[in-house]
């Protein structure tokens, strides 16, 4: 599978991970790859079981955990954003419907915008909330109590 994905996306970077096959995908190629992974029968990754974001200080990362319910194989894809502020990644919520809520959550808590998302609003916090709490540089002197 490693070779197949590398051949599909030339810019992909393989990452060592004990548990899952992991790739770092350039953000502009992600949507095409997702389309292929979902639709091509040899992959048929139809189940996105986890979608999350990580703040890596220099950049933000979106992590896609995929599983195929037919072939029972799993794959982890990561997309790195170029910078921290005003970044955006293409949405996959038309490919895997579950991504719709998860992308809203990532936007809410990490501030990564998803292009072409039908309803890009905050999901947990108020609409006028300042900042994105899961970022490492988020400060909130009132609500976060340091023990």
């Amino acid at each position: 599978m490693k070779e197949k994905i590398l051949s599909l996306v030339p810019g992909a970077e393989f990452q060592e991970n004990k548990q899952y096959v992991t790739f770092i995908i350039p953000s502009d190629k992600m949507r095409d790859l997702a389309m292929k992974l979902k639709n091509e029968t040899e992959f048929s990754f139809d189940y996105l079981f986890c979608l999350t974001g990580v703040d890596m200080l220099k950049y933000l990362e979106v992590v896609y955990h995929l599983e195929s319910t037919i072939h029972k194989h799993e794959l982890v894809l990561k997309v790195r954003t170029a910078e921290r502020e005003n970044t955006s990644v293409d949405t996959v919520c038309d490919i895997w419907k579950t991504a719709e809520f998860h992308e809203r959550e990532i936007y809410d808590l990490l501030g990564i915008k998803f292009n072409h998302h039908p309803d890009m609003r905050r999901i947990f916090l108020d609409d006028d909330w300042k900042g994105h709490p899961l970022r490492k540089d988020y400060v909130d002197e009132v609500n976060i109590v340091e023990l």
Partner: protein
Amino acid sequence: MKEVINLPVKNIEEEEYHINMGPQHPSTHGVLRLVISLQGEIVKNLKPHCGYIHRGIEKMCEKDTYPQIIHLTDRLDYLSAHINNHAVCLLVEKALEVEVPERVKYLRTILDELNRIASHQLWWCSFGMDMGGLTCFFYGLRDREHILDIFEESFGSRLLHSYYTPGGLLQDVHPNFQKRVKDFIKYFRKKIKDYDDILTGNIILQERTKGIGLLTKEEAISYGVTGPSGRASGFACDVRKHHPYGMYSKVEFNEILFHEGDTFARYMVRMHEMRESMKIIEQLIDDIPAGNHTAKMKAIIKLPAGEYYQRVEAARGEFGVYVVSDGNKSPYRMKFRSPNFSNLSALDHISREGKIADLVAIGGSLDYVIPDIDR
């Protein structure tokens, strides 16, 4: 004089109006707000608004050590607290490559299943209440009490246990544990017949749930609807079967699969799962091996740098923990993949063109626990 505003009068039959269901509403089971567009009584559109009980648990985890995180996972899906604890414990054990004693595996599996039964009992009674049958509520709670007593005797708490620790259990179970569990199974096998008599076979329930809230298998997979709700659509998503942990690879049990995908199928999956869970417990309870209740762990648990993911089957679906560790004693980023969050996303799709009463039935059958959605 009042200003007269002339709005174009729409066809009154087609006019939609909005209702806020929640944050305080008897059938949202917590502080969930659903903005429903109605046409008469028909639900045309539905927008869930979450976050009323968002506590930022993922952010809190970034400050806590791994043993401390356990007690936060209790507070996600509070009805399957053991199973959530199990996920974090398994993740830490996997990362540190610790082998837990057999006894711990047995006990954890039994407790998980007891927790699943308790959760399904509570689901059954609240579902009955959503449908208007208030008596179900008391029967369910009455039987759940027996499980909670077993829990209380062994580790002192009834709902939020924090009983699993990385490497084992906090303390050994009470000497009465085995006997009480066996008594409970005997008792509940009798009482579950009442459940079938009063609700399952009831013509009103069947009429109200069959063919309501259809979710096809493809949609279930796409929406990530897991657990009993997913299995009712034919999505074989039982983590216990497909990615076994604990003792699940060694016991015999069926993955309950229905293919109708309607509310009644979701109901039936849970009813069968209670029996299936009892079967698992019966297989394990007699030969719990003697031994230590915990593996040897370092005093301060530090995960090696890297990424870890652990999936378990919670009572409402697949619960996942994703940890990015930088080698410190607390995680760099911790993400809980909560089953209810994904299940909720399908609610809009499956309740459209139904009636308000259908929405309540569908909501009851999806069995959402709001703190798990909001985290």
